[in-house]
């Protein structure tokens, strides 16, 4: 009986009660919208962090003394190169510049394609510099009395990585950070065989007990933990979403047992089979839920990646980083998971009571 007329009839019946269905559509869509937006923001931040991590070596080491960080030098590089399994050790320069006027630290990172007179800043930093009338150039004050003036060559979008960063070449970075030619902030250790990373991460502290050794799998785990969507604030959000979802389901079930009870009985009495009634209900609710699901997905993509998630972003980034943009991601696994946990229970909550009513005696239902 699943033909064009049947479909027409289903849709007409749906439109007849559009008030009821619109309510479900809006509530259901809103729940999906909130959950998807939160997941998109957290996944996007995580992806950015992991992409940045992929550009580093397999192990990062930092020098510490009494818990404070100290620079490393070429001798450290030469010693670490002697460890079997290490293919290369790359000295990296980074650090923070104290912008005392605004009581704020800017991160200084290296981009060797820049010349000695220019720098690239993020939108967030540019906004701050503009407030202090540094629109085209900026003066770095290098104690005791030196001044280094750099032109703002470019302003880039702020991501979670670059929002507080000024890019300069290595030579200039060393001047700003007052580091000697053979000093490094941290070392990237390249270990080609991933099975050996753990072993080498254990060997290094035996050579340099004061080193902080961070294998990439540990940093990855830290990032995962930071935006762990099964715990903390995410859990509260899910519980709220779930409770609203269940209230919605309860509403649907009671409506099936209430006003819809007679409708099903009438349909049965005019010759609809049980299968037809289930198909009818399935078509109606499938249109509502899937429609709501895709609308919510589109809205949340636009909300997060076009409008940069106003309000929700503050949960993740705080008030300060206003210009951060989220890098668009597409995670099919996540979307399928949301579909399974929302659309499927919703449909089940309609179809099971409908089926139970359909198999009841028609005269009983009409009473």
């Amino acid at each position, binding site marked *: 009986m699943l033909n064009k007329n049947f479909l027409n009839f289903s849709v007409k019946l749906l439109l007849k009660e559009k008030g009821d269905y619109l309510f479900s559509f809006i509530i259901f869509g809103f729940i999906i919208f909130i959950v998807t937006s939160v997941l998109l923001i957290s996944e996007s931040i995580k992806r950015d962090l992991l992409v940045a991590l992929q550009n580093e070596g397999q192990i990062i080491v930092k*020098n510490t*003394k009494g818990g404070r960080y*100290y*620079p*490393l*030098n*070429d*001798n*450290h*590089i*030469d*010693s670490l*190169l*002697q*460890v*079997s*399994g*290490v*293919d*290369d*050790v790359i000295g990296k320069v980074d650090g923070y510049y104290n912008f005392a006027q605004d009581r704020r630290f800017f991160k200084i990172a290296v981009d060797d394609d820049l010349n000695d007179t220019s720098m690239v800043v993020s939108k967030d930093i540019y906004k701050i510099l503009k407030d202090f009338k540094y629109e085209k150039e900026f003066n770095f004050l290098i104690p005791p009395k030196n001044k280094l003036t750099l032109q703002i060559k470019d302003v880039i979008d702020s991501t979670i990585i670059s929002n507080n960063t000024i890019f300069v070449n290595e*030579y200039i970075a060393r001047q700003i950070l007052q580091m*000697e*030619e*053979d*000093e490094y902030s941290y070392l990237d250790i390249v270990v*080609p*065989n991933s*099975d*050996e990373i753990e*072993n080498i991460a254990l*060997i290094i502290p*035996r*050579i*340099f007990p*004061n080193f902080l050794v961070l294998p990439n799998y540990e940093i990855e785990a830290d990032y995962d933990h930071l935006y762990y969507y099964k715990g903390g604030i995410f859990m509260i959000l899910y519980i709220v979403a779930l409770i609203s979802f269940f209230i919605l389901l309860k509403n649907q079930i009671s409506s099936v047992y209430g006003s819809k009870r007679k409708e099903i009985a009438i349909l049965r009495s005019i010759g609809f089979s049980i299968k037809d009634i289930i198909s009818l209900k399935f078509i109606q609710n499938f249109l509502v839920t899937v429609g709501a699901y895709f609308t919510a997905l589109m809205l949340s993509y636009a909300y997060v990646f076009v409008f940069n998630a106003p309000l929700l972003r503050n949960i993740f980034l705080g008030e300060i980083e206003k210009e951060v943009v989220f890098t668009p991601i597409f995670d099919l696994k996540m979307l399928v998971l949301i579909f399974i946990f929302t659309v499927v229970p919703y449909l089940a909550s309609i179809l099971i009571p409908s089926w139970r009513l359909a198999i009841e005696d028609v005269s009983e239902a009409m009473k």
Partner: protein
Amino acid sequence: MFCRIILIIFLSTCMLNAKMFQSVDKKNGEFIQSGKSKYYCSNCAMYLPRYYKTNHIYKNKQYCSLHCLYDSLKGKIPDGDVKVVDVKSLKFIDAKKAYYVVGSDKMGTMTYNSKYAFKSFDDAKEFVKLYGGKIVNFLEAYETTKEDFLKDIELLETTKEKKTYKLGKRVYEKKCQKVDVTAYESIASLKADLKRVCKRVRRDRDLQAVTEYLWDVVKKNKELKSFGKIKYTKKDKCPICGMFVYKYPKWVAMLELGGKKIYFDGVKDMFKYIIKNRDKIDYDKVYVTDYFSGKKIEALFAHYVFGSNVYGPMGNEFVPFYSEKDANSFRKDHYGIAVYGFLQIIEDKDIMEDMKEL
């Protein structure tokens, strides 16, 4: 590996402070050479002010260390006047009357066993009190340099292979005008000219890397240890076990037989195949993947660790290494039983039998 770690610990105990102990500002040092290569070691072209406290002078040539002096004299004891920097005053003094402190905690130059000289015995004693070591005269220090020489060369070669040549090549191609290396008679003059043509290179370490790369690899055609990776397709299967090799890139082995390339998913299967077809195979055309670097190496010269706790796709494996040092350190770290050579495994039937029994 344990001895190696002890050695590296020894090398690095003095490195808590970021700046190198040997370095001084060039204004505070004495540099006797003239011309463009005034500030470069005659033997290795390293920047002399950076290693000033271990500088030596012999026959109007300035060297960054006793190691370089020994190297340039090919081990002969210098017959004339030798001068060395007094660590206390930073002035050159007669090396033959100086007091050398050997083996202190302070990092040496070109050696794992540091050697610093003092004019007065009391200064040397005070240094020993602070940083340890033993006070000796010039000849004894020279003798120690001789004893350390091979080990020092090995450490320096490792650094060159792993870092210097790669860095040098990259910097040269990106930031330097091209030079004709054959036109230079000394490494120091090459470096002096490179300073002129590599204007965007500011760090001495980068310039030194370019110099060593051009001198050793381009001029002297030094052969580098690796030649890329073994290339295979998704269709290649191991003839012994039938497994696809692309799934196990860390273990791929390959041999060429009659113009055809045969791939294996591990060294063990490769040896089984070779033992079966011993007469047909040219051992020079057999390649394995170095476990640490993932690079293609010649199987004939590789070292194989037997009985370790690292398993390949077919269980227990012979784990291949280019360097014997790496093989030994891996054996110790991963509880290996022995390190074998290629021919040893093929000729000694017991080894394959032992492998079956593991």
